[in-house]
């Protein structure tokens, strides 16, 4: 790897100022395409949170605990949400504490695209961490070009109010974007509770997001700086259980203060050699309080956590002989977690990730090979216990992957990938008081998949079909199991899950005159079987919360400034346990949403109705979702 870097540095040709800069084909030809990608501006349904966008993607499960403030995590092809990296402008939004990103916290406001790579993303100048996650969600912020001001107001059911403002200004050669957004909701909605109907309480949220971004250019390059602050205060309504009358389900509250500063600098030193430097500093503070004075059933936790991380990455790309190129990316990250919980060991982690990638990209045939090495040093305070030695440990893993692309006809593209990746145990897995196991090994995911894309065009009609069969195996899966004492649990590398599935997506578009009609059909088959304990009673059963069948239909019609969109999604039966018994059976459900919007010059307005047939359903057992609800949106740009 280091050798390759040295070679890359020596091989760079002297800058050629006379001849026009050569454009190398390899730079323009991606080996892998996104599984799904949407332009945020084109979304008619006016989503507020990123989770709402991902919900529609094929092969994706968004675990939703209900309400605007409820936790929303994303799982891709049953790998587990810990294997899904979420990247904002190529820099990972990470959470060393539990390895899960709450996508309910990220606003779509200010984003240009949201995309999903189910397998291996392979573009030039990726960070090493982008190669190292099992699946990846990409959030890309829009780059402003001209002075502009955009005011947006959304509001509706659950007393949801969501104003935002984005202000773009040219300051000499630098472009400034400042944005602010408030989100408030009382989270109150009716739900069926056993034999009666109750209103969800303590699900309110208030949050404020403030962002400043700077965009600039260098000779042959560009840079950006992004300062992000987010504060929220919310309640968790808790699971719906049998409760003595007069006692609430929950009085838990959580306050968060998140801050990060991130930046990137992409520079083309000469036509062959390009670098990208990225950095990030993040600090997340959480205050969690169960408020026993308001809930006699609460355990009296009043805890504070502070997570901080620093990250730097250098990616280099060198065109050896067009269309053959090689990339070397090196990332280093430092994470620390502090808390006032009892016997807390203040874990710290340094992670080095190095990725070497090479691509050969002909017009119709492209191939890429990637090799990642990741090593993590963990340090924590605290001592040995009896026969149980806690260890400061170094964990490392090699993650190879291969991607290939072939387009034999203009109407057919095929790509395939095979990949092994690992996810490090989280701080909670390792060091959670009375639970963590500092001896854990990384969890491993093997993935392979094929993508077939067919396109047809005929006069006003446009058809496409996307077929993706895949197979995944998650092994050494980290699971919580009890020890000899029922009050002392621990984490072990015990689980094994085999996942075989297929995603199908078909799009038909008709365009004539002022009319445009698009129909999108998605279907996902996912068989995710628990193969942890041969002979055990759950062996061979479907793992929790994964439907065997799911799908959706979107119909969108545009006429002059009007847009009408209809979405119906279907989720098949699921179980909340690997024991696929009646007690843990979750009924299938289907949901329909409809949106109507109108754009007139600088003004646009929309009305959005969700769950229009008022179905009651649960994504997570014990957490009822809202019935019919609506929202109005107004936007003014100048």
């Amino acid at each position, binding site marked *: 790897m280091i050798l390759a870097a040295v070679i890359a540095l020596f091989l760079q040709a002297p800058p050629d100022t006379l001849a026009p800069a050569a454009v190398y084909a390899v730079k323009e030809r991606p080996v892998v395409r996104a599984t799904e990608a949407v332009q945020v501006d084109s979304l008619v349904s006016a989503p507020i949170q990123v989770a709402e966008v991902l919900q529609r993607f094929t092969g994706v499960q968004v675990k939703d605990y209900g309400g605007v403030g409820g936790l929303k995590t994303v799982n891709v092809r049953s790998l587990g949400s810990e294997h899904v990296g979420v990247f904002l402008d190529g820099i990972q939004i990470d959470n060393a504490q539990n390895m899960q990103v709450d996508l309910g916290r990220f606003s779509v406001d200010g984003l240009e695209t949201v995309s999903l790579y189910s397998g291996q993303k392979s573009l030039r100048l990726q960070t090493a961490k982008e190669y190292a996650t099992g699946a990846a969600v990409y959030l890309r912020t829009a780059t402003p070009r001209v002075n502009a001001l955009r005011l947006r107001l959304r509001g509706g059911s659950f007393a949801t109010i969501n104003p935002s403002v984005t202000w773009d200004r040219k300051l000499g050669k630098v472009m400034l974007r400042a944005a602010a957004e408030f989100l408030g909701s009382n989270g109150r909605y009716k739900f069926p*509770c*056993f*034999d*009666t109907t109750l209103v969800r309480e303590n699900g309110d949220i208030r949050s404020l997001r403030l962002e400043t971004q700077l965009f600039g250019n260098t000779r042959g390059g560009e840079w950006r700086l992004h300062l992000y602050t987010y504060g929220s205060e919310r309640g968790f309504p*808790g*699971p*719906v*259980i*049998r*409760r*003595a*009358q*007069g*006692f609430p389900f929950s009085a838990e509250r959580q306050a968060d203060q998140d801050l990060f500063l991130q930046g990137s600098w992409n520079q083309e030193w000469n036509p062959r050699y390009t670098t990208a430097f990225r950095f990030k500093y993040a600090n997340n503070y959480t205050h969690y309080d169960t408020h*026993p*004075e*308001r809930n*006699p*059933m*609460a*355990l*009296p*936790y*009043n805890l504070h956590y502070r997570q901080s991380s620093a990250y730097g990455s250098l990616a280099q790309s060198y065109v050896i002989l067009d269309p053959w190129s090689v990339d070397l990316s090196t990332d280093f990250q430092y994470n620390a977690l502090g808390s*006032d*919980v*009892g*016997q807390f060991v203040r874990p710290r982690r340094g992670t080095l990730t190095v990725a070497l990638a090479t691509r050969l990209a002909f017009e119709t045939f492209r191939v890429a090979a990637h090799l990642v090495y990741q090593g993590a040093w963990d340090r924590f305070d605290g001592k040995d*216990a*009896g*026969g*149980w030695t806690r260890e400061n440990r170094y964990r490392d893993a090699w993650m190879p992957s291969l991607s290939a692309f072939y387009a034999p006809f203009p109407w057919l593209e095929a790509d395939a990938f095979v990949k092994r990746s690992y996810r490090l145990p989280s701080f909670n897995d390792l060091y959670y*008081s*009375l639970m963590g*196991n500092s*001896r854990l090994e990384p969890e491993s995911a093997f993935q392979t998949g094929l993508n077939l894309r067919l396109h047809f065009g005929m006069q006003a009609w446009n058809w496409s079909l996307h077929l993706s069969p895949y197979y995944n195996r998650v092994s050494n899966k980290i*699971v919580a*199991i*009890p*020890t*000899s*004492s*029922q*009050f*002392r*649990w*621990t984490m*072990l590398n015990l689980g094994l899950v085999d996942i075989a599935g297929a995603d199908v997506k078909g799009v038909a578009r008709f365009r004539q005159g002022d009319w445009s009609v698009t129909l999108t059909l998605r279907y996902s088959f996912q068989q995710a079987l628990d193969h942890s304990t041969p002979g*055990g*009673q*759950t062996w061979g059963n479907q793992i929790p919360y994964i439907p065997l069948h799911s799908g959706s239909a979107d119909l969108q019609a545009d006429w002059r400034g009007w847009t009408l969109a209809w979405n119906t999604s279907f989720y098949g039966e699921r179980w*909340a*346990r*690997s*024991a696929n*018994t009646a*007690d*843990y059976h979750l009924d299938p459900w289907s949901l329909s949403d409809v949106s109507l919007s109108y754009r007139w010059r600088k003004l646009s307005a929309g009305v959005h109705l969700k769950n229009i047939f008022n179905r009651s359903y649960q994504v997570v*057992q*014990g957490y009822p979702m809202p019935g019919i609800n609506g929202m109005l949106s107004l936007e003014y740009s100048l």
Partner: protein
Amino acid sequence: MKKAGLLLLCGALFFAACQKDPVPSKDATLDGVTVDVSAISTSARKIFVLNEGGMGSNNATLDFLRFEDGKYISGAFKKMNPTVGGGLGDVGNDIAVHGDEVWMVINNSGLVEVISAVDETEIATVTVPTPRNIAFDDKYAYVTSWAGAFVTYGADYSVTDSSNPKGQVYRINLNTKKVEGTVEVGYQPEGIACYDGKLYVANSGGISSQLPPTYSYDNTVSIIDTRSFAVTKTVEVEVNLKNVYSDGQGFIYVTSMGNYYDVHSGLYGFPANAPENVGHVWSELYKHTHVSCSCILGDEVYCIGTQNEFAFGEKHEYTVWSYSAQQGKVIFYPLQLTGVPYGVLALEGDLLLVADAGDYFNPGTLSLYDTSEQDKRWSVTTGVCPGHFAVWK
């Protein structure tokens, strides 16, 4: 004539019904898995098994073993009480029989559920915040509670003091099923036993150990006089206490869970008339008498423990042993247990019912062992986290 005949027939049927006792109990229709109960003492009519379920999952369930036909019946509460919304509730933490009533402590539902032992139909529910364990004398049921715990409640559970993290014992009138007073004990009280006009309460401090300002376990047994309903004495035993048993002959046993770190779990005890004389049961021969779960039968406490209990990541070899203060000796049994023993019930005739919680997330199993044999006699599938037993005689 025809009518008279019909009447006569009805009368005869009625008479026959009166004579030929029992109108079949309402739960006679419940069917289950047949197991071999021939070895178990027949003085019992039912053995109830309370499955805790997982916290927040609202999946506590009640199973029972019916001796009449040897059926093991699952999920009986929900089947016999279909109109009770939410079923048995969230986390079944303790179960005990009093007369023909079964009292169940449903921890995270904040309820004590009283049902008929005859047909499992609901008789009453009593509200107790975060209740843990139960004991009886002839007038009252006594329930330990954590929650009183974090706050002190006035009428209607309105908060009068939110600075007091100690637990309470709730006293419930057996006839009216109403709470008649509470008394403050130590931090996060668990087990409770009644002997000779005194209540013995094991205080764990399981939550305090994780929290400021103390970050430490409780190590005391609170002794309450039932007549004055006040704590008369507090005895230091060992950290993180769990179960309390009375042998009915003047000796009190207490188990400790240890601190999972450098204090092992174990069995302690003291004479009821000299509670400061605390003793610790120890076997030099086996180098351990640790306690994962336990029960009492007569004057003998049966325990299941493991020697390497701090080796959290490793497979445990469990040993089954018993101790009687009257006989003063530890006996080890040759049973080869599999899985994770979560609850145990000793039965007359040297038999043990052992509940295996499996992965604590999916249904567990219940097995019958003979204490002199290595292998189990039979196993049945239970609900999630089977852990508590009560025998109806």
